[in-house]
């Protein structure tokens, strides 16, 4: 009778927008670019998202290999286990970041056999010419992962860039220290440029960098202008789609393709709004994805929410930009300085507002603002067990939100970013059902 379905036969995930549907091929092309780079005489680098260096890397024609993306693909294809097992065989603890474990397991295997592991997802991840990690910013794996990878590739140089975020503190205001934070970041970025010049044998074209950064700025604007259209009722695009559209945002910043993508998305959303086309026919609940990276192997859970009439007009995850014109950036001619200020101003964006609300932290302030702007009925968060950077403090944020704002229904889902063993579909769906019941009773 019924036998086990092969993973490929699972139901394909529905996206609300055409833009989001395009992303799979964009993603695939990125992987192919990386695989072809060597024959095309281009240099490659392992890179992390949200590291302030996108435009710098693009300007120097270095092909970025986004290791988090590759791990996410393995997770989404439900083919991460064998790489996680390889990492464990190396004595890496399963409790560490599973992106890193997947990547390290893959790299160890590839280096051991001298070629891509068999049936590597989408052709696999090639050995890079250099690795660009970052310290201090959101997470420890960002400085430990590539250092650990070097053990399997001792001839590949690593540059670790310091990218601090100014803390939100009671005893001083961020403006008081912004000056020396910017100076530090500028020096670190300049050091990165020197490193890249050394390992590519080319000099940085500063004029071109200015252009690319300007394109990046305009893309920042375009992203939020498009996303803010999701305030409409009914909502034309949900977080499920945003987990796709994050691809050009985080992996292609500084390219014309990324800008065009969000321009097209903007136009598409405008059309949908004009036709009153929502993600679901009967929109009953509007939810905020308040934190946590998604379970990449279970994005169909968004369709499950939708089947209950619940949509996600907004999320904090991967919404890593704000319009430049809101950031109050000083006018500087040096693109590196501009990048540093952009970084500092973005990462402190919610501080002033949070100060005005007793008990608020910037994260909580952000949640409150989205709840009001997007007409939110409830907040959902996802606890991924292997990621301490994005997933610690979520319980606290929700508690604080209820304490200082209002007793809004909240739900915390639990699993992981790519380790499917941590996920129980039956349990997850049950929790979602219970949450929908709560939303319904609050409505009445």
């Amino acid at each position: 009778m019924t036998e086990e379905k092969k993973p490929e036969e699972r139901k394909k995930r529905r996206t609300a927008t055409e833009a989001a549907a395009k992303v799979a091929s964009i993603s695939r092309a990125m992987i192919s670019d990386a695989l072809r780079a060597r024959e095309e005489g281009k240099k490659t680098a392992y890179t992390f998202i949200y590291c302030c260096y996108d435009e710098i890397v693009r300007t120097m024609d270095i092909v970025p290999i986004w290791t988090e993306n590759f791990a996410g693909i393995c997770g989404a294809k439900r083919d991460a286990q064998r790489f996680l097992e390889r990492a464990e065989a190396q004595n890496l603890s399963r409790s560490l970041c599973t992106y890193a474990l997947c990547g390290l397991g893959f790299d160890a295997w590839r280096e051991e056999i001298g070629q891509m592991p068999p049936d590597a997802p989408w052709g696999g991840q090639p050995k890079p010419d250099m690795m660009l990690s970052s310290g201090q910013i959101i997470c420890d794996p960002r400085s430990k992962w590539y250092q650990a990878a070097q053990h399997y590739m001792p001839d590949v140089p690593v540059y670790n860039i310091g990218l601090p975020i100014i803390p939100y503190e009671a005893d001083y205001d961020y403006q008081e220290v912004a000056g020396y934070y910017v100076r530090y970041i500028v020096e670190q970025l300049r050091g990165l440029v020197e490193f890249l010049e050394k390992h590519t044998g080319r000099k940085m074209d500063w004029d071109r960098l200015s252009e690319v950064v300007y394109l990046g700025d305009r893309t920042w604007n375009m992203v939020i202008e498009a996303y803010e259209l999701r305030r409409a009722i009914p909502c034309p695009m949900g977080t499920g789609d945003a987990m796709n559209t994050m691809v050009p945002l985080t992996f292609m910043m500084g390219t014309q393709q990324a800008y065009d993508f969000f321009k097209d998305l903007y136009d598409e959303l405008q059309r949908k709004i004009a036709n009153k086309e929502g993600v679901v026919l009967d929109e009953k609940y509007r939810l905020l994805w308040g934190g946590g990276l998604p379970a990449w192997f279970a994005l169909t859970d968004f369709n499950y929410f939708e089947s209950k009439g619940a949509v996600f007009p907004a999320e904090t995850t991967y919404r890593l930009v704000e319009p430049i014109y809101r950031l109050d950036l000083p006018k500087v001619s040096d693109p590196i300085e501009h990048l540093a200020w952009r970084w500092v101003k973005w990462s402190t964006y919610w501080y002033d507002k949070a100060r005005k609300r007793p008990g608020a932290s910037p994260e909580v302030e952000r949640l409150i603002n989205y709840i009001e702007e997007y007409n939110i009925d409830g907040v959902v968060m996802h606890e991924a067990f292997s990621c301490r950077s994005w997933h610690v403090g979520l319980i606290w944020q929700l508690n604080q939100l209820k304490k200082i704002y209002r007793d809004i229904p909240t739900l915390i889902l639990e699993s992981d970013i790519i380790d499917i063993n941590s996920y129980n579909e039956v349990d997850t769906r049950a929790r979602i059902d219970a949450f929908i019941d709560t939303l319904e009773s609050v409505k009445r």
Partner: protein
Amino acid sequence: MAEYFAGIDIGSTMTKVVIVNEAVVASVIVATGPEHRKLANRVMEEALAIAGLDFDKITYVVATGYGRINVPFADRQLTEISCHARGVSSLLPTVRTVIDIGGQDCKGIKLHNGQVVDFVMNDKCAAGTGRFLEVIAEGLGIRLEEMGELSLIAKNEVSISSTCTVFAEQEVVTKLAEGVPVANLVTGVHKAIAARIYGMVSRLKIEPDVAITGGGARNIGLVRALEPRLGYPTMIPDEPLLTGAIGAALLGKDAVRNASENNLPLARIRHPLQELTFFT
């Protein structure tokens, strides 16, 4: 004059006693049960009866296993790692990798010239141990002992994606209700455990010859699932449950010989063979 040495291996599921001189002269295997402290001396007495010996004829007693601390009549206690290694290296001298699949834990041991050079243990998680199989067997309504043979008649393999015992049981029961043949499910379960065991053992550099010991070695289906992952054929001792106790006895023999050859004192902390009371 023949010298006798005894090894007692108190596992979480089974307690084994072996008496050796030049060869094994007696062996006993019984279920441990909850009262292992009281059981130890009874099992020892049973073995002595088979060998036709009094306890004071035993030169040295080594205890091992989960319950090794609670054997007052032992001269010394050593870990299962050392004991399994010694037992396997005497029974199968070419073995360099040992995989012991027990009731509640599993271990991997690397040997060079009969000496332990590396080891791994999994005693935190049921998946990959006999317990996993017990839970599944119950869920399927079959006996644990049937599982090996049953998997041999499977027509197709079924993939169990959960490696957590609790989730896997749910998955298996659900599939059974959907009509998936039991034999196919059992094969899938063996494959899942084999993956888990392999994951643990692969922390060691697996080198041939590879031996499997413990209760898991008696499950032909599990062995068949494990071999392709290991990449080597496996050797199984005739009595895979006894390697720990045999090794323990032999380590006792080694200790006595070493002490006499080098004129060293040998600590004997042995108490009389009597039932462990509350006050001992």
